[in-house]
């Protein structure tokens, strides 16, 4: 701490230059925070995946339905302890732009399968008992101002009712949420009771979209997956079973490899920052050679002067990193608000902060070491005489 005023004075010796450098760091770290939040949001499905959950879909396409009758047969596979199913309903509310996922599920089985979702016991029971019941994710309910007890008129993208209409009406009986912010992104949906849906739809009765299978031992995931798929081999509805995480990653990659994209953008950004900041640091130290020589004259050892130069680079990165990450955090509420809940919630988690700290430390070392070593080798007499 005793050297902080010295470091601060050295850093802000040329205010305009330092502020511009700092701004570039702030932008870089803000971009890092935002892009990481996007990546985390995209991968939240995979992150929230339970190793003891498998997903069984039609072998060749997830949009092909599977018979509901498969449930009992899958339940009999050794190692399986629970099976639930869900079907894609797809929905719009009021107008085309208010689209969100709606799944037709068996209420008890589905909610048992996802203990990470939180819902009041009474609402959960009401969902199971009400044939026209529906429950909505909290963020979605907040976005549209829904409340428990109201009618929920939604139109399906693909499922007409027996009368040919695509307009459905459900009773909103519960609100779904999650404690973990990564899981909360997966609650932006509406669940409807499959009992009413299957009875009232025009076609596809007795079929569902996919199965969610809970297994006893996650190390047996592969063999149980093979056993399930073997059961239905050579049938008209062959299956493909895989761990939930694998499925989620594969699904996210259909949109694009967000992780790789984010990594490439950030490499480009930080490489530019490295050159820019490194040059500024080197220039700043070059200009202060006589001052560093004076410090040595006064009795600062080579090691101490080296540490001071390095500490200056670290201070610069701490300031830039903290302000940039702070800006990213500050932007989250506005960004989340502007997506209107159509995108999983963006947030800067502890892992992102940790990663930002590591990047700041590495950048500080890379840009600080060359001038620090130069300061270390500095000979007082030469520096003071201008050689």
């Amino acid at each position, binding site marked *: 701490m*005793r050297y902080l*005023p*010295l470091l601060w*004075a050295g850093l802000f010796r040329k205010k305009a230059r330092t502020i511009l450098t700092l701004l570039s760091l702030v932008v870089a770290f803000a971009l890092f925070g935002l892009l990481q939040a996007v990546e985390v949001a995209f991968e939240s499905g995979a992150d929230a995946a339970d190793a003891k959950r498998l997903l069984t879909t039609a072998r060749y396409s997830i949009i092909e339905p599977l018979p509901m009758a498969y449930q009992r047969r899958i339940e009999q596979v050794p190692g399986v302890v629970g099976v639930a199913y869900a079907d894609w309903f797809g929905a719009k509310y009021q107008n085309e732009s208010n689209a969100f996922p709606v799944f037709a599920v068996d209420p008890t089985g589905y909610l048992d399968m996802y203990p990470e979702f939180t819902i009041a016991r009474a609402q959960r029971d009401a969902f199971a008992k009400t044939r026209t019941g529906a429950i909505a994710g909290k963020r979605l309910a907040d976005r549209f101002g829904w409340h428990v007890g109201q009618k929920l008129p939604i139109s399906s993208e693909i499922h007409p009712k027996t009368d040919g209409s695509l307009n459905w009406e459900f009773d909103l009986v519960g609100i779904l949420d999650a404690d973990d912010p990564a899981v909360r992104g997966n609650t932006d949906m509406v669940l409807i009771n499959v009992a009413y849906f299957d009875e009232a739809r025009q076609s596809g009765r007795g079929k569902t979209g996919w199965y969610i299978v809970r297994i006893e031992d996650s190390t047996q995931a592969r063999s149980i997956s093979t056993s399930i798929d073997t059961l239905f081999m050579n049938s008209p509805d062959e299956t493909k079973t895989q761990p939930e995480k694998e499925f989620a990653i594969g699904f996210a990659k259909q949109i694009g490899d967000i992780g790789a994209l984010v990594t490439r953008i950030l490499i480009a950004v930080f490489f530019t920052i490295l050159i820019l900041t490194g040059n500024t640091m080197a220039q700043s130290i070059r200009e202060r050679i006589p001052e560093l020589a004076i410090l040595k*004259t006064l009795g600062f*050892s*080579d090691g101490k002067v080296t540490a001071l130069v390095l500490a200056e680079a670290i201070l610069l990165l701490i300031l830039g990193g903290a302000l940039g990450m702070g800006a990213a955090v500050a932007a989250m509420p506005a960004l989340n608000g502007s997506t209107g809940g159509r995108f999983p919630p963006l947030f800067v988690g502890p892992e992102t902060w940790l990663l930002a700290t590591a990047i700041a430390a590495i950048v500080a070392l890379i840009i600080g070491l060359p001038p620090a070593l130069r300061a270390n080798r500095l000979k*007082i007499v030469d520096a*003071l005489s201008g050689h």
Partner: protein
Amino acid sequence: MTVLVEIRGVTKVYQRGRERIEVLHGVDLDIPSGDFLALMGPSGSGKTTLLNLIGGLDTPTGGSIVVQDRRIDRLSGGELAAWRAAHVGFVFQFYNLLPALSAQRNVELPLLLTDLPAAERRRRARIALTLVGLEDRARHRPRELSGGQEQRVAIARAIVSDPTLLVCDEPTGDLDRATADEVLRLLQMLNREHGKTVVMVTHDPKAAEYARRRVHLDKGVMTGEPVAS
């Protein structure tokens, strides 16, 4: 009077590329404790080189330098830095203050190397500034001070850690006559009233008059024994 600095057969050779420059050729000199010695001579005579060796900024190629019974020519870089911090105060022609720091912070710099708490460092820096008559300029940056004031801040910095030896390289070389006299009187006061041993390089005979003794160097050799000013 005890000898504070004992220089014996000191030589200094610089290698600039292929060129070998012999700056000092076997200098012998004793500087008693409490002395105010002016090192004089024409440009290139080796007086600044000798001063740098006395102040531990450089090491001799040959010979020995003993300060307070310690062979400083044998100290490692780190030991020499610690020795300078504890025993030597430096005053340069161009002041060499850190422009981004206030006068107070500049004076505090040598104390950062001690274990003194911040309040005590501030107090001592304030005393040093008072001693040089600049207590009301503590918050000013070097660019807000005149040349003479800057040099007085540099002197405050040189004395703040209470060193045994003050090493001054052309301390009045950048000042007008009146200001130079003020600075020289200050050095004289530090020598006479506070017992500081002062070694000053100058080629100004008027400046040398403030010293107790003077010695001449020419082409790396002393032209005679030190004489009283």
